[in-house]
């Protein structure tokens, strides 16, 4: 399937995701099922998601809590195994590779940055160990076998301070513990750790959501600088549309485990097609008070255990009709964007 803009067909995307699905078994324990006759229950956290990311570009996934965006992130880096579907990285199927002897090489090439910098750094380790661990683990310290351990340790230290400096921190910070840093500095340590293996692809799961705005600006600027200098490819997950607009090239909007719209950033923000995308855009507080008219947002995200029939957005959609209640729309190319909506297909919206 050709997901890319026509002008860039020549280059093959770095990451391709096809029909990716993840189902979690949330059934009651066996005894309760037998005694209380409870059925087995499954949550379709991610359901048939497909997209591709070009080398050096950023794809952002947005959506509200429980829409499956973090599950996609974890599937991509191999923290979860997909129930169905396929992820290929630089032409290699990752599902098979993660089980093979080449897993280590693949892991070196993709890294993840987590949301909470207070939980993702070991509080008992010094920064030197935190950032140095991937270097040790992957044997990335300069030189091999013949060198004495002293030389290797020195090389490791030098590399760690170099990494810290690349994210705007002092090389001397290696001797400190995570609690001695502020939230923004910790997130920079996480980024330095992720960069240690010189990855090509970074999965960033809400990297700035736990940070204050002035600190968020520092982290976003660093991420953009690094992308420009090192040609990194990002999957950027966020619920903040203004941040997404700032960092991304392409944006995918998720709702209850499915992609409902995937478009180039400018197209998506200038002319949002899917009613859910429009609703999300309308919900953003207008900081410049331009007096933009807003449509009131209706309802809440339904329980993913029991998603609505047909298009899962239909109970909240002002344009829903009989067909939307019965038939689930497929993601298809309409008016230059990928969209899953009967209304847009029929020209009603």
């Amino acid at each position: 399937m050709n997901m890319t803009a026509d002008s860039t067909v020549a280059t093959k995307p770095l990451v391709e995701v096809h029909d990716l699905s993840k189902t979690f078994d949330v059934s009651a324990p066996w005894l309760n099922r037998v005694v209380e006759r409870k059925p087995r229950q499954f949550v379709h956290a991610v359901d048939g998601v497909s997209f591709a990311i070009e080398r050096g570009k950023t794809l952002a996934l947005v959506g509200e809590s429980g829409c499956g965006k973090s599950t996609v992130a974890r599937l991509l880096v191999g923290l979860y195994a997909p129930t169905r579907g396929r992820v290929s990285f630089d032409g290699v199927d990752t599902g098979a590779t993660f089980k093979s002897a080449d897993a280590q090489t693949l892991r070196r090439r993709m890294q993840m940055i987590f949301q909470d910098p207070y939980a993702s750094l070991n509080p008992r380790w010094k920064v030197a160990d935190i950032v140095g661990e991937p270097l040790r683990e992957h044997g990335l310290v300069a030189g091999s076998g013949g060198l004495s351990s002293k030389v290797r340790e020195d090389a490791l230290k030098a590399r760690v301070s170099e990494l810290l400096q690349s994210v705007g921190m002092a090389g001397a910070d290696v001797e400190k513990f995570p609690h001695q840093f502020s939230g923004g500095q910790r997130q920079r340590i996480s980024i330095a750790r992720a960069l240690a293996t010189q990855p090509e692809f970074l999965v960033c799961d809400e990297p700035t959501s736990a940070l204050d705005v002035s600190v968020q600006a520092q982290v976003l600027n660093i991420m953009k600088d690094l992308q420009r200098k090192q040609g990194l490819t990002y999957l950027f997950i966020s619920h903040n549309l203004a941040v997404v607009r700032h960092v991304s090239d392409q944006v995918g909007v998720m709702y209850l485990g499915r992609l409902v719209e995937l478009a180039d950033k400018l197209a998506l923000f200038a002319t949002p097609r899917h009613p859910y995308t429009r609703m999300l855009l309308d919900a953003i507080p207008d900081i410049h008070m331009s007096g933009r008219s807003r449509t009131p947002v209706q309802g809440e995200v339904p329980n993913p255990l029991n998603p609505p029939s047909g298009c899962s957005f239909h109970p909240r959609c002002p344009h829903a009709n009989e067909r939307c209640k019965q038939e689930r729309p497929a993601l298809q190319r309409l008016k230059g964007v990928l969209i899953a909506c009967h209304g847009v297909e029929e020209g009603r919206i």
Partner: protein
Amino acid sequence: MPSPLLEVKNLRVEFPTRRGTLVALDDISFDIAPGEILGVVGESGAGKSLTGSAIIGLLDPPGRVASGEIRFDGRRIDNLPYEDMRKVRGRQIGAIFQDPLTSLNPLYTIGRQLVETIQTHLPVNAAEARKRAIRLLEETGIPAAAARIDQYPHQFSGGMRQRVVIALALAAEPKLIVADEPTTALDVSIQAQIISLLKRLCKDHGAAVMLVTHDMGVIAETCDRVAVMYAGRIAEIGPVHDVIHSPAHPYTAGLMGSIPAMDDDRERLLQIDGAMPRLTAIPKGCAFNPRCPRAFERCRVERPELIAAGRTRAACWLHADTVKAAA
């Protein structure tokens, strides 16, 4: 101009610790007119929530009001005995907190919690209180309120719980509501609903609001005036429009520049280097001076008071000249 509903004058909150006294809030002065919505914005640790706690008399010990005063409707409330303050809280000043799940008792139905609140503060019988409770739930947009009133908090979604909390805060018809990050725990689509609900209900009930948040967008949409806090002090206070469009304090300007907006196409965001100082190490002079791009000699030695700057007031020596010129 009507006399203010809430007056805070030179409020100073201290936390005595073994290693010395921490000054968490220093020289905070502002007031709120009846029916007005005042936003209090700032980054984590700036003291915005603490200001709210001080007003509703819920400072965590060992924190205490060291000096200054808080007046509500002309009456001093910062030194009231605990029991008297309990009567003010809820009846006169309602409170809404960030996490709706921890604000509700999980063991009681929401009806029981509402009826109890109403009967504690208003002289009505149980049947009348229940009728009021249902009406409040309807007003906050909870569908089938008459049936849902007998459900427990866990049977409500996050957005619905926050509606219940708003109903609770409004139950005794208070004149002021202190809302501490009421939408931070909610999804974006729910946030907009809750903010417009809060705004509409407070207008209908004639309640003034002190809205504490870190989200400048929420402030822009909701408030009449805004106070920007930094390191335990007010950096700038004024009408929302002026503070956002022509900020007088370099910190406000930096804060506004660091927020990515829907209509800007800058490649890089403006960044304020460094981080807010810890309470143990607040710099001499203006607390913002080490991060300030426009700091000069005076900023490093002398601490600025709020100085009139255009239509806002800012604690910044850059505006000292305008005072002299006017005098």
